[in-house]
């Protein structure tokens, strides 16, 4: 198997097919490519000897649109990139522009941002868990996951009126004050979640079939993961303790105690465990944060028309899928000169070919799931 990973040419188009090799197209319409990812697989029987990801089916030119909108107008667009974690996208963008302007959101706004972002992380991981399990053939967890995700979406809806593409934050802070029952509802949700996560684990963690399907599949060593620029759970499962929340704290993360779960083997099973643990940690952060939400204003004084001084800024946050970075260049006008986004899914997807070589078709599906890609973010 080691041979197949090293000798086959990465470009499957130019490779001459052997007598028993076939090329099959997975996607863009395929039940388990998580949207419109297209994967060309070169198969020897059912063994993968080469792969190529073809992306761009969902390209909307988000970065170009940014150049023709002013700073506030562009904020809702970022929600449409990683649409299962819209709040995290918004946080990254707002903080990047604030950094560019030298402004800072008030403490109250930062704590509320942290709570919502962590809830969003849980929601994103729940969606991942459900679909990943579904890909591997477990039909039931997805409904349990959606049951809990629904509670989170209800909290979002009560907070800002939207469930999916929330546009929850504004540059400089928040537009909406937290609603009256928010602390209580978040607390109730977090307390329930503990048992619910135990339920998912009871279905999967020690299930022989699940372990057989995920252990040793799509192994990425720490060095490989770093070379490929992988971030988030994909990197941490390989044993690298890197989390932007700890390394370069933003929002209010420096105030809370939480751990960075890591794996050792860098396989699909470890990534599963890491994400389950991350849900538990997010829950912990939320519980700490609602204990003590400072009072005060929720919006910094930044004026109605944003004209950041000429210059450039890079700001990144730990989105559910990995490091989400915004690079913004300002020319001193009301519109950004250039916005470049570093989406975690796009970068993590690079590791795909490395992970699938030598595995079987069934594992390809497991590996697509374990990278946790959202095509809206990959294609932008």
């Amino acid at each position, binding site marked *: *198997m*080691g041979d197949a*990973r090293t000798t086959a040419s990465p470009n499957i188009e130019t490779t001459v097919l052997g007598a028993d090799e*076939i090329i*099959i197209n997975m996607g863009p319409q*395929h*039940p*388990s490519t998580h949207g419109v990812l297209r994967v060309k697989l070169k198969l020897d029987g*059912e*063994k993968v000897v080469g792969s190529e990801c073809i992306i761009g089916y969902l390209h909307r030119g988000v970065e170009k649109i940014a150049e023709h909108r002013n700073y506030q107008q562009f904020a809702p667009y970022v929600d449409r990139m990683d649409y299962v974690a819209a709040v995290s996208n918004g946080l990254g963008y707002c903080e990047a522009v604030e950094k560019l302007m030298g402004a800072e959101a008030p403490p109250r706004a930062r704590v509320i941002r942290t709570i919502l972002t962590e809830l969003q992380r849980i929601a994103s991981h729940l969606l991942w868990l459900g679909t990943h*399990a*579904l*890909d*591997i*053939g*477990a*039909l*039931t967890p997805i*409904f*349990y996951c959606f*049951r809990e995700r629904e509670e989170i979406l209800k909290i979002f809806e009560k907070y800002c009126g939207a469930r999916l593409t929330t546009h929850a934050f504004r540059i400089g802070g928040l537009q909406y004050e937290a609603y009256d029952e928010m602390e209580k509802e978040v607390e109730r949700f977090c307390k329930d979640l503990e048992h619910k996560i135990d339920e998912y684990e009871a*279905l*999967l963690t020690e*299930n022989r*079939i*699940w372990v*057989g*399907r995920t*252990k*040793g*599949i*799509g*192994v990425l*060593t720490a060095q*490989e993961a770093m070379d490929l620029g992988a971030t988030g759970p994909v990197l941490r499962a390989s044993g690298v303790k890197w989390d932007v929340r700890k390394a370069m704290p933003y929002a209010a993360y420096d105030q809370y105690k939480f751990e960075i779960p890591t794996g050792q083997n860098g396989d699909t099973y470890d990534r599963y465990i890491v994400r389950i643990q991350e849900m538990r940690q997010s829950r912990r952060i939320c519980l700490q944060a609602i204990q003590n939400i400072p009072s005060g204003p929720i919006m910094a004084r930044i004026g109605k028309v944003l004209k950041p001084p000429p210059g450039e800024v890079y700001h990144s946050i730990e989105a559910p899928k990995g490091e989400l970075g915004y690079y913004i260049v300002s020319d001193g006008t009301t519109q950004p000169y250039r916005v470049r986004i570093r989406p975690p899914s796009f970068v993590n997807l690079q590791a795909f070919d490395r*992970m699938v*070589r*030598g*595995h*079987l*078709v*069934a*594992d*390809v*599906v497991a590996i697509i799931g374990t990278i946790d890609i959202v095509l809206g973010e990959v294609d932008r």
Partner: protein
Amino acid sequence: MTHSLVEFFKPHILPLLYALVIVLVLPLIAGYVVLLERKVMADMQVRLGPMRVGPHGLLQPIADALKLLLKEDIIPENADLWIFWLAPVLSVTAAMLAMAALPFGPAFQIADLNIGLLFILGISSMGIFGIVLGGWASNSHYSLLGALRSSAQLVSYETAAGMALVSALLLAGTLSMHGIVELQAQQGMWFVFEAPIAFFIYLVASIAETNRAPFDLPEAESELVAGYMTEYSGFRWALYFLAEYANMIVVGSIATTLFLGGWLRPFPNVPALDFLDYVPILLMLLTAGYCFWRAPRQPVKVQKMFLAAVGGLCILLAAILAAPVFGVPYFSKAALHGAFWFLLKVFLYIYVFMWLRFTFPRYRFDQLMKLGWHFMIPVAIVNVMGIGLALVLNRQFHWGLAPALLVMNVGVLLVAAWLAWVGERYETPVVGGA
């Protein structure tokens, strides 16, 4: 002349009638098994399942069937037309033919062949041709992969299932489905208690044979879209679907006949438990009561009427089942209650299929093969030898059947545990890695 013709056809009229009933009713039953599956799935997944068509979705299968009949029939451009057309028909024919020898009760059987089981096994193996040919004729990679997986899987698990059945045959000493059940009635013991390991092996192997989760690799929707059915649509697809569910009923019936005492009620020879004869009637009455209780609560008038009708049907069935108990002439208790118990057992068996499907993830192909060849088949073979040895011990050395079987089953269990341990220990290193 006419007289002799009547004389000639007389013994065939009843079987022909049964055959007609099976061909006409089977699609309906299969449709309702699908509805049952969706309801069971919904129950396990905290949701309601089909609720729109009819009260609690009771008319959903009919709506689905109509939809499938009216759908456009798409044939891929480079498909092998004749084979493409033939394949689903072959699948469905095999599944239906197998039903000819199934005893749905002491009286409901089309033909009591003296090689009944052999016939069923042979015919249902023909179904694989439908799958392989369909996958080949579609001229699509996904279909081909699905068909290849399917044939490999069927061949491997047929062996294990066959060996498990041989264990039961050793105990029964006959291939006639009717005879097998009658022997269990004589012994007053279902074979599942005499050969539990064989039953377990057959349970697992039959799941794999019918391509059900967690062994549903040939049609793994998240991997191969729909496997061999990928290019099929409309009515042809419905035929495959029908074949799959008919096969489930067939394997359920085989297991019921060989291991679960066929049409016998639990403890058939214990007079103290004769009250069990009232269970079918009570069950029907309870269902009817529930329907009547729910009927006025339905939102729409049609639904109220429909649910009341279902309740009425249950009352009717209860009356029919009750007739022999109260000594009404022409109503044979053995036939009516036998059919009830038989169908109940078959549905419980199918329920286990569904339960497993919604609980487990799917095996990977190599894992499936490994499980089949490294574990199931050896254990099945050892089990056959164990049962045979137990019979010898009973007959030649007069151990008594029960102790001999107990010793042998424990022995086989130990062998199975050892095999599992060896499998864990010498597991081949996982593919991939740096």
